[in-house]
């Protein structure tokens, strides 16, 4: 148990790569500048803040990209650096090794995503002002972002265990499936995680005018259903990742 817990902490430390964090910080600061720039022109409403900041740039780019880099790095970093051998020869079962590494990435992913949401809400509150207290606005978006982070992380972690070029495949997935397919009419968009995140977002902000541009095309589901779907996706991809990693031989370990 000791070695497993140490592996979780070790994995968390390994994820704290300066370049990655700097890029996340730059993205965040760009969003803050965006919030302040717009907020100085006119005060924020929940509807505009939810759509222009949380909805599009944050949920459809920042969140998937951050979870992509952290999720695929769970196994991908060690594969690329050829250091996976040092972990695979330890007396730790493969599935628990995968679980430890994913759990090691989770605090960082949640920290960045939730911290960024809090920061953006705080920036909006300072620049332009929000119609509700800061804590209420943060709490409105927090569950959505948290569940979205967990679901994305589990998915990209699985991707990293399966594919050697997981980052590129993940990017292709984000831009082709999450971005484009998430906007097509019909039920096809329900294969994207971003659909359920947006459903939760619209459900949370429905009392403040935050809704899809075209409800007939978007056809959202209820917030509870979306939350359950995200949790189920997280559980399924976590299980898949553990199973895949435990069965697969990585011949490129050295």
């Amino acid at each position: 148990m000791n070695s497993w817990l140490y592996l979780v902490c070790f994995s968390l430390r390994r994820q704290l790569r300066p370049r990655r964090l700097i890029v996340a910080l730059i993205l965040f600061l760009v969003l803050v500048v965006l919030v302040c720039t717009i907020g100085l022109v006119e005060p924020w409403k929940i509807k505009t803040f939810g759509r222009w900041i949380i909805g599009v740039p944050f949920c459809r780019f920042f969140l998937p990209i951050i979870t992509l880099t952290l999720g695929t790095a769970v196994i991908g970093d060690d594969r690329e650096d050829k250091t996976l051998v040092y972990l695979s020869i330890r007396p730790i079962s493969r599935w628990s090794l995968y679980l430890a590494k994913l759990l090691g990435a989770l605090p960082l992913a949640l920290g960045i995503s939730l911290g960024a949401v809090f920061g953006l809400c705080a920036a909006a509150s300072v620049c332009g002002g929000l119609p509700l207290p800061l804590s209420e606005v943060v709490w409105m978006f927090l569950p959505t972002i948290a569940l979205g982070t967990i679901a994305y992380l589990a998915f990209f972690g699985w991707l990293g265990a399966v594919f050697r070029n997981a980052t590129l495949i993940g990017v292709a997935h984000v831009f082709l499936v999450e971005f484009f397919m998430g906007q097509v009419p019909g039920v096809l968009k329900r294969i994207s995680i971003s659909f359920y995140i947006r459903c939760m977002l619209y459900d949370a902000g429905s009392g403040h005018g935050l809704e899809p541009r075209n409800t007939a095309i978007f056809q959202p589901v209820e917030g509870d259903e979306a939350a359950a779907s995200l949790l189920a996706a997280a559980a399924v991809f976590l299980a898949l990742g553990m199973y895949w990693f435990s069965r697969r031989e990585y011949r490129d370990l050295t």
Partner: protein
Amino acid sequence: MAEEPLEINEVDLLPNAMGATVVDRWTLSSAPDELRAPALAWWPVARIGLGLVVKRRIFKVFMGLGLINFLFFSAMIYFLAGLAAQLKGQRFGQGPLEFARNFIFTGTGESYRDFISGQNVVVMLLLAISGAVLVGNDFRFRSLTFYFSKPLERWQYFFGKLVATSLLVTLLTLLPCLALFVEYGLFGDTFDYFIESRRILFGIVAYGLLVSVGMSILLLGVAALLQRTISIVMVWGLIFIFLPIVTEVIHEASRGSHYWKLLDFWSLLQWCSNAFFGIESDLYSAEPWYPIGALAAWLGAALWAFWRKTRAVEVVS
């Protein structure tokens, strides 16, 4: 009989001093002739790089995705030509035909511009792989030492990599666009389309080359700076997805202030494409130096980053 040992002075061993100069191999001009690389030394660099990318399975996937768009346009041109032939002389058919033409493919500069722009997502993804494979790996796995231990100038290394990445982009943009141009012209009743559309042809070549070379330069700078696949992909996504989203939001929120779009590389390429195709646009029409300067700044920064990082030996403290 033993010979007397020969007295040797060190001075005798030194050749006549010819005004020895310190050769700085990092500048373009002071390498002596006998060390200078052949003029085409960049071509093996390009060829090897292309080979490295092309043999990857994921390259074929992205090429396939890029071809989908091309095949769609190509099929539409054929469809419209066929429809026009079928409906010739029929009054009722002309309405739907005009509607289809306007909606799908008009054969004007906008159509070709839109086709190349439509390839941008796949091009972006393809370049992200190329950056990591062609340049990032050279830095990470210290292959630069091998390149610069040969009589290869730094500019030749750069040019070779540039040619490799540009060729990849050209395969998805310029060449299919030229194919569409030829196809559209050939499905006309005469060859007049080719004569009348010289400006369009110029636009295709110029825009295609700008997209290929411009994006490649940007990629080389990013890849040299960041080196790792994940970091390259993140920054690439930031430049080509995040910044356009952000600038669009600001553009919407500020009720049409277009100066923010100077941060968007796509938008700058789009402005250039309008200029090449002769498409009228209000954006920066009175101040063309803004987008030109912004584009130059982007490419200059990328070139500077690449030049700085290109060393045979990495000094580690």
